[in-house]
Structure formats: C-alpha cells, structure tokens
C-alpha cells in the first residue's frame, strides 16, 4: 500500500517509532520485573508485591539524598549514568517493535550490542571498585570473572547466527526465522537459542547462578556491585539492571524464539500491537524464568563454570551441526 493514498496522520514517522522502541524498553522494564516478582511470589504461595512496585521503588529512590564514599572520584557518580545510556542505546539496534530495519538499526550488529552491554557492566564494576567496600569489590570481581567465561558462549551464538543468515544483524536473523517452519525447527537455531537463554539466566543473576532477591553477601555477584550507591544513582543502577533484563528478553524473544507480532508497517495500530506483544512475550519469558527460579537450587560458586560449560556445549554443537554437519 503506498502512502500517497493515505492521509498523513495514519502513519507514524520513522523517528517516532525509533523513539518508541527506546521508550517501550525504558518504561516497560520495571513492569516486567514486577510481573516476574509477582509470579515468583505466587509460586511460593505468597501474595507478593504489587506489579507496579518497581516503579514506586524507583520513584522513591529518585527523591532520596545521594551519598558517596569519601575516596570515590567523579567516576563513581558518572558510572550509573553511562550504564543507563548504554542500555538505552541498545534498543535502537535490535528489533523491538518493527520487523523492518529502522535507520539507526544498522548502526551496529549483534557484536555492537554486546560491546555496549559489556561497557555498561565494566563501568558499573569499575565504580564498585572505586568504593573500597569489600562486598562491592567482591561482586565486581566475580561479575568480571564469570562474564569472561560466558563470552565464548555468546561468541558461538553469534557464529551460529552468522552461519544461518550470512550476516550478524539481529533483524536478518529474525527475518530468517520468520521465513519458514524449517528455520525454526533446525537444531542449530534451537541449540543457539537454548545457549542464549542460559547466558541470560546468568547475566540477569537468576537462580542457578545467583539468588537475585537474596541478602546473603557471600552468594552475590551482580547484586553486590551497587552496595555503595544511594539515592538517584542507586535508582539508575536498579533501573539499569531492569533495562538489561528486558533487553536480553527482547533479543531472545524477538530475534530467536518468536519474532512474530512485530509491526511490519508504520501504522499506529500495528505499532501499539507490537508494544503489547513485546511486553507479553517478555512476561512469558519472565514466567519461565520464575518457574526455573522456584524449581532449582542455587549452584555453588565453583559449580557455575559447569553451568556455563553446559551453555558452551549447546552453542558449540549448534555451530558443529551447521558448519560440519551441513544442517
């Protein structure tokens, strides 16, 4: 359908859609966290917090006073801002709402998104080191150690994508998966998606790796890094980890598992539907994560390598079936 036949207001301008992608992730992320917390509580037989609780938490923290340790430099306060900036840039690169590439969508590929994620995590870890607090440092040292061993898994997932599509653009993989049922069912795709899911469990600090609600410092990895931040800066870090979770869920759902329900036109209706679909898919992934949270025990710290080696096995077998097995 050509746009000449339609009156102007029926189509959203591309920059608006691009902005909506960022806004959907920015505003939807705390809600998804709230849904997961609610489901988790219900599975444990508790009533649980309100779904909107994360928003209230953030609003409260943004109004509070900010304190910083005396030895900390400007970087300590800049880090949360840089991290959130990174997280808000990534939704420009991945298919959040549309099945067609937006102009800024080709600014970076999957590796570009990966670099931004690691930059954010590096900045937060460095800020935690600045504080001199033992627990924050322990958290950042552990986070860096374990992210170094999940890196190969992510690389092999990217290799699988590259072998499947001949490119490493997230939009291209989503389009390939949509193109036929055979693409969905092929082992390489499923293995890579499973490996990515395990990495996501690891990156969002979920149960086989870490108890995200726990207050036991000895088991903490990601959660320990924000110990010394307070007020608006702590709010930014919290919001940042919620953003990261929704971004990773979006990549899993909209690129790998279910790239359906994305807007293929610029009509407002399609875009609104896509926003609803994205949030629904993210909540569905969240429910699965909550079920896993309730069915497994946390791994001992030194067993995490085994968990990651499982993910690595999946990713490597995915590449093998494609590159050597011809499937």
């Amino acid at each position, binding site marked *: 359908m050509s746009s000449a036949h339609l009156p102007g207001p029926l189509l959203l301008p591309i920059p608006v859609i691009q902005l909506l992608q960022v806004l959907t992730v920015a505003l939807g992320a705390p809600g998804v966290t709230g849904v997961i917390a609610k489901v988790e509580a219900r599975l444990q037989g508790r009533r649980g917090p309100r779904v909107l609780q994360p928003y209230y938490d953030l609003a409260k923290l943004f109004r509070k006073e900010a304190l910083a340790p005396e030895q900390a430099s400007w970087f300590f306060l800049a880090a949360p801002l840089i991290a959130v900036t990174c997280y808000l840039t990534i939704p420009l690169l991945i298919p959040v709402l549309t099945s*067609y*590439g937006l102009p800024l969508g080709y600014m970076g590929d999957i590796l570009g998104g990966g670099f931004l994620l690691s930059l954010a995590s590096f900045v937060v870890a460095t800020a935690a080191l600045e504080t001199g607090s033992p627990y924050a440092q322990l958290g950042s040292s552990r986070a860096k150690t374990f992210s170094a061993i999940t890196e190969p898994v992510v690389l092999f997932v990217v290799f699988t994508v590259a*072998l*499947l*599509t*001949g*490119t490493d653009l997230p*939009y*291209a*993989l989503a*389009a*390939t998966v949509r*193109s*036929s*049922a*055979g*693409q*969905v*069912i*092929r*082992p390489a795709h*499923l*293995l890579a998606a499973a490996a990515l899911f395990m990495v996501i469990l690891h990156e969002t600090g979920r149960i086989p790796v870490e108890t995200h609600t726990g207050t036991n410092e000895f088991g903490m990895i990601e959660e320990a890094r924000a110990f010394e931040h307070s007020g608006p800066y702590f709010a930014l870090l919290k919001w940042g980890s919620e953003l990261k979770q929704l971004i990773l869920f979006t990549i899993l759902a909209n690129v790998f598992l279910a790239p359906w329900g994305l807007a293929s036109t610029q009509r407002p209706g399609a875009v609104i539907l896509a926003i609803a679909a994205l949030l629904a898919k993210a909540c569905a992934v969240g429910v699965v994560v909550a079920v896993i949270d309730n069915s497994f025990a946390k791994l001992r710290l030194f067993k995490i*390598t*085994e968990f990651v*080696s*499982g993910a*690595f*096995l*999946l990713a*490597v*077998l995915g590449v*093998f*079936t*494609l590159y*050597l*097995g*011809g*499937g």
Partner: protein
Amino acid sequence: MDPVAMGAVQAPGVYQGVADVIAAVMLLIEFGMLRQALARDQVRLYMAQSALISVLAIVIAADRNLPDLYALAALSAGLKVVAVPLVLRRLLGRPRGNSAPDEEEPGGVAGSQTLSPASAVLAGIVLAAIGFFCFGAMKIHGMAGGPGGKNTAPATALSIAGAMVLVAFGLMIVRRDVASQAIGFFSLENAISLAALVVASGLPLILETAFLFDLLVAVVVFGMLIRAHHTKAESLSTADLTRLRG
C-alpha cells in the same frame, strides 16, 4: 531486506528438522551421561535416549511411509526403555548378602571420573568435532532418498550419530566403573541404530531386530561381568583390576 538474498542457509524440511533435533537431543543426553555422577541417573538418561530413538523411528515411519518402522519403534521401546533399564537397575541395586540399607549405595559411581566434569565435556566436544568432521566428509546423502526426494542436504542426524559414537567411546574411557562403561556401550548401540535409521531406514525389519537382540546378549554379558566384578572386588570400580598380573 530479504534474508535469503543476504546469503541465508536454506533450511531443510520440517521432518528432517524434527529428526535432526531429536538426534541433537540424543547427543546432548550422551553428554549428560558423561557428567552424571549417579548410576541410576545414568540409567534414567539411557531410558530417555532410547525413548527418543523410538520417537525418531515413528517420525521417519510417518514421513516415508514405512509401516515396518512402527513395529521396530514398539519393539525397541519395549526392550530399551523398559526391559534393559529394569535389568540394569536390578544389577546395580543391592546385591544379595549386602547389608545395612544406609551403607554406601553400590550404584554410586561418583568417584569414578578420571577427568573433572568440565574437562570431560571439553574432551567430549573435541570427540564430537572429530565425529562430525569424519561423517560430514563422507558426504552420505541419507534423507535425500525419501519418496519425493524433498531435499539434497546431507543428513545432519548422521553426523550427530557419528559424534555420538565417539562420545560414547569417550564415556567408556573416562569412567572407571563397570556401570558407566556398560551404559556407554548400550548408548553406543543407540548411536548406531540412529545412524541406521537415518541412512537406511528401509533396512528390513529382521535385520534391525537382530541388532536389538545383539543388545540383549550384551546386556546379559555385561550383567554377568558387573555381578562377577562386584562379588570379587566389592566395588564397581575397574581401578582394582590394574593390580592383576598374569
């Protein structure tokens, strides 16, 4: 942007995709056995693997109109999902004359790994790579022979079967207990029937049943070996055998 125009790999058909996925899951189960610490969990994994191969037989039977394969699926499910695990559990359970129930369970094979689980998995990956590479190099076009010749892609499932054979060998090598070695051997048979199903599913039923009964003989032999070893050495570990001198 059209993904196919961008150099995307053509996907095989849905049936072959299902077959490949089943084969891939079987390979993953093989890796699971590699790091499983309890013999009864290994038996459970073997049951799952055998159940999958029966499902695969049904899928192929439906895809290629080979009614024989339904019979084979039923037979192999009866033997490998029910009978063999039952016998294995009997053998690994408390043998006669063994006392107190709170004693160390003879089925425990926890200490029998010669490599740490992570290294065992890495070694398994290397073995799988060799298997994939060798079978890929043979360029056997298994599924292509089906009615209608839906595609000409080499059967990924065949390469996976090759990888499984080698990983099963690996399992028998890195474990020092009789139970894991027996299960490694039985899953080796699973790998071979997988290869047979993918490449030559039209193989006469009688030949495939003969394979299955070979397995039964192996179960009996292994059972006697496990029993004999356990009564002599009072453990399932083969480490004690190194002391034997001619």
